[in-house]
Each structure stands twice: as C-alpha cells, then as structure tokens.
C-alpha cells in the first residue's frame, strides 16, 4: 500500500517515518519507551499474523500457540542449557513451524469460522498441556528468565532503548517480508486462494500446500516475537504467553488496521496500543477498559469499513478506489 505515498513524495514520507521512529529514543522517558516497545511488538505480531490471516485469508485465532512456543523455547534453553536466546529464538521458530504444520494439516481445509475455532481449540489444548507440565516447564507459575542486567549477547539489557531498537528492526524486517510476499508470485497465488479457492486450483495453484507455507512463515515469525517478549519482561507463564486473549488481540489489531495490506498491521498497532494505555489510565484502573476498547473498535471498524484503517485513511486522502486497489498489488 504505497498509495498514500506518491512517488515524488516518497522520500518525504520516508524521512517522516524515520524521524517518528527514532524520536522515542531521544526522549529518555522509560515509561514512554515501554509503551513504544509494546506497540512495536504488536505491530510485529500483527505483521506476522498478516501473512496467514491477511494475505492468505485464513482467520487464525490461535496464534498465541506460536507466541508461547517461542517464549518458552528460548527461555527453557537459556535457563537449562545456557544457550543464548538469540539462538534459542530459532529453536522456538522451528518448533512453531512444526506446530503450524500439525495444526494446519488438521484444519486448513475447514471453512472460515470452523478454521478459526479449530485454531483457537488447538491453542487452548497446547496451553493446558503447558500448564500441566510442572516439572518440565514450571506449570501455571511459569519460568523466570535469569536476570543478567546488561548482556546484549544474551538478549538482555537494563535500558529500554536496547529493546526499542531491536523491536524497530524486527518490524522493519516483518514489513520487508510482507512486501516481498505481496509482490511475488506466491503473494498473487495467496490472494487468488483468498478470493476463490476453486478457481485458483483450476489455474494450477497448489492451494493446500501454499496455505500451509503461509502458516509456517507466520508461525515462525510469531515465535520470534515470543522470544522478544520473554526477554523484555523476563518472565513467561501460560496465562501471559499462551492465553486465548493474546491470539484474539493479535488478529484484531491486524484486522482493524487492514488485513492483507502492507501497512495495515502497523497502523492497527499504532492506534490500538497507545489507546489501550490511555484507556487504562483514564478509566482510573477500571478493570477491562482496554479490552472493552478493542471490542468496541473492532465492531466499529467492521461496521464502517471492513477493510480497516488503511482504507479509511486512503479515503480521507482522496485516492480513488481504482488506484488504491491496484497500487496494493495482489491485495484487497
């Protein structure tokens, strides 16, 4: 969706994004940085989800499974075998891919809502298994990441700036991956599958296999996000990283922003995470205010513009429908 950025304005937009992205690093405000890091994390997770849920159009509500696998894997290998989370991250990604294949093979042939429920059910089964693995994984209480204070090679640092920069890099990479997929043959094929699966089959697209690939890529990316989270908060537990809420929120962020688009997931996170924080502070600690906001915004967006924020913004900036849809390439 480069449509908002005209070719002649592109350097200007690029510079603006760069400035906005780097600004928080100079604030010195740890609280602000914390929110910024979480916003970037969710942007990253939404971008990861986008590969399967947006571009391939498979509404997965169980991505918490992959997030949790990533968080637990890197943490376990770090605590028990001293392997740096930078390496453990890849182990987590590999395990998540295996999980994605298992889940995918048993559910990708299901239609819309059944697929969504099957992914949710799978994630919940995994959560129960982890909760019951007291000896191996710490059970419901979870595991703590050994505090090392400043140890960048072990993916830890005391200042939030460290995590902010890494998160920024992750988001940039995720955007890049989405971008490459969208302009490639694979991206067109996924869009075809999303629109009309039978017609895609008839034109030679190996639909099941390609959906599975999308699931695998998405799972691996999400797992890496899980490792980041584990290293940021230095603690993992079934509730925090395998919870059903998380899986739903990731999907919601991407959908509100505009699923299947390049910048939708980022916009979704930019809108929702700070709002959530504001809702929390302004509601005077009213329980659940942030989630209520998510639910409300989701309903509003689906009501007014199911294609999400990206499309709403494009309408405000006056692009015609025709131009918008083509500049996005093989997306909505």
């Amino acid at each position, binding site marked *: 969706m480069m449509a908002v950025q005209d070719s002649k304005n592109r350097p200007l937009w690029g510079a603006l994004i760069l400035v906005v992205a780097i600004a928080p690093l100079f604030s010195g405000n740890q609280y602000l940085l914390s929110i910024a890091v979480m916003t970037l994390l969710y942007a990253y997770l939404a971008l990861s989800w986008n590969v399967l849920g947006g571009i391939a159009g498979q509404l997965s509500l169980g991505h918490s499974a992959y997030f949790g696998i990533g968080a637990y894997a890197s943490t376990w290998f770090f605590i028990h075998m001293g392997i740096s989370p930078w390496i453990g991250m890849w182990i987590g990604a590999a395990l998540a891919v295996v999980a994605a294949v298992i889940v995918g093979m048993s559910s990708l042939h299901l239609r819309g809502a059944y697929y969504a429920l099957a992914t949710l059910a799978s994630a919940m089964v995994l959560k129960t298994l982890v909760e019951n693995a007291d000896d191996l994984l710490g059970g419901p209480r979870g595991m703590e990441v050994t505090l090392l204070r400043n140890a960048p090679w072990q993916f830890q640092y005391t200042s939030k700036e460290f995590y902010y920069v890494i998160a920024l890099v992750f988001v940039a990479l995720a955007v890049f991956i989405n971008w490459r997929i969208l*302009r*490639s*043959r694979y991206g*067109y*094929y996924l*869009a*075809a599958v999303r*629109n*009309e699966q*039978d*017609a*895609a*089959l*008839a*034109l*030679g*697209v*190996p*639909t099941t296999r390609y959906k599975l690939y999308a699931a695998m890529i998405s799972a691996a990316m999400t797992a890496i996000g899980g490792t980041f989270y584990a290293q940021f908060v230095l603690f993992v537990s079934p509730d925090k990283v395998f919870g059903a809420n998380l899986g739903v929120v990731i999907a919601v962020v991407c959908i509100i922003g505009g699923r299947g688009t390049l910048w939708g997931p980022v916009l979704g996170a930019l809108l929702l995470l700070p709002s959530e924080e504001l809702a929390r502070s302004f509601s005077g600690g009213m329980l659940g205010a942030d989630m209520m906001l998510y639910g409300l915004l989701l309903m509003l967006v689906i009501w007014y513009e199911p294609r999400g924020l990206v499309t709403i913004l494009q309408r405000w900036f006056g692009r015609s*429908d*025709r131009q918008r*849809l*083509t500049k996005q*390439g*093989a997306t*909505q």
Partner: protein
Amino acid sequence: MTTNTLLEFKGVGKSFGGLRAIDNVSFTVNEGEIVGLIGPNGAGKTTLFSMASGFLEPTDGQIIFQGTRIDGLNPPRICRAGLVRTFQIVKPFGEMTVIENAMVGAFLHHARPEDAREVAAGVLRQVGLGGREEQVAKTLTLSGRKRLEVAKALATHPKLLLLDEVMAGLTTVEVSEMLELIHSLRASGVSILVIEHNMKAVMNLSNKIVVIQYGKKIAEGAPAEVANDPQVISAYLGGEHAA
C-alpha cells in the same frame, strides 16, 4: 486416426452413492478440434468437466490426456499438463484487478511478475479486455467476467480448454463476439471442449458434437448429423430449447 487424440474419455462412469450420474461415456477430442458437449440440464456435462479437470474422481473408466491417464490426479497437476477448465458460474478473483486475475493464470509458466504481467496483458487483448486492465474484477459486467474467465484459463497456455456454458446470459451481440473469440483461439492452436445450451452457437463452433442424456452418451457426430438424430430431438423436445 491421422489426427492426434488429445483427450479421451474411456468408459467413464460416476456414481454418487446410489445415484449413477455418468454411465459408460466414451469420446475423444482431437488436436485442433472444437467439440461441443450438449444435452438437457442435469445430464452430467459439468460432471464430466469436473472429472477431466481433477475436481472429481471417476468411479470407473479412464480419462487420458496426451497419452497419459489423468483421472484421479489433482487439478493443479492437470492444469500444468495443459488442460484447463472454466466454471459455469464464473469465479473471478473479485477483489483483484482484471490484469491481476489473468496474471494468476500466467504465473503457471512464468515465475517473474514482470513476465506474467506481459503475458496477462497479451491474453487480455486477445479476449477483448484490453484497456480494462486496472478495473477491479467484481465490477465487470457479465460479458466481461465471461471473457475474464477465458483469459485466466488462456494465460496458462493450455493445449485443451474446457469452456462451461461460456455464452449463458450473454446478448446476441456478445454471443457472436464470443464465437469469434473461440474460433480465434482454435486458430492459435488451442483445442476446445465446450458445454453449451445455445444451439446455434454450438452448431457454428463445433467440428463434432457429443450428446449426453441422463449421464449416457446418446449421439456423437458432425453437427448436421446430430441435429437430425431422432433420439437427440426427442431428448430436447422434453426439455431444453435452442437459445
């Protein structure tokens, strides 16, 4: 046989539970031919298409394409072998543009998006959709969608094209445009098997006509022959009319 046999149905049968939808159907499509497949509604014509293109598996018999058995193979493999089908109820990739639709077909043999786009543009010109490349597919008229359906299939460089009621719902002018298109396709080397209810169109197009009723073949031959076959006439008097 002096001409090459491209597609052969050999004693093909299909049962759905207790229902015998297709029974012992055999015929061939030769290279360079346009074969018309006609018959009353519900006779099983689309079922034959689905079996040939891999969407259904025959219960008995064989389907042979260019000398190799294809019955039971999946649609992408058959498509890659050079046999492509269109759908009776057209299935455009609605949210994508016209050219993107055609590109999906073109990608089969052209991995790079630039190449696929070029091939797609060419195919669109061939079917008369040149100039509409950037239009969103779901906004096309029925005639446009039918052409797009042909374009998508054409972009895969098929040897054999299965056209399922591609004239249904078109005006007389649009029908003759489509006829021209199909003739030009054959001239460019694509063999075609058409299902049609429009009798004039079928007679115009086909080298050979196969008539299916209640899942069985009841006639096969040159258009004039078949048109005068008493069995065919009685099959139609009970049901369909020429468009």
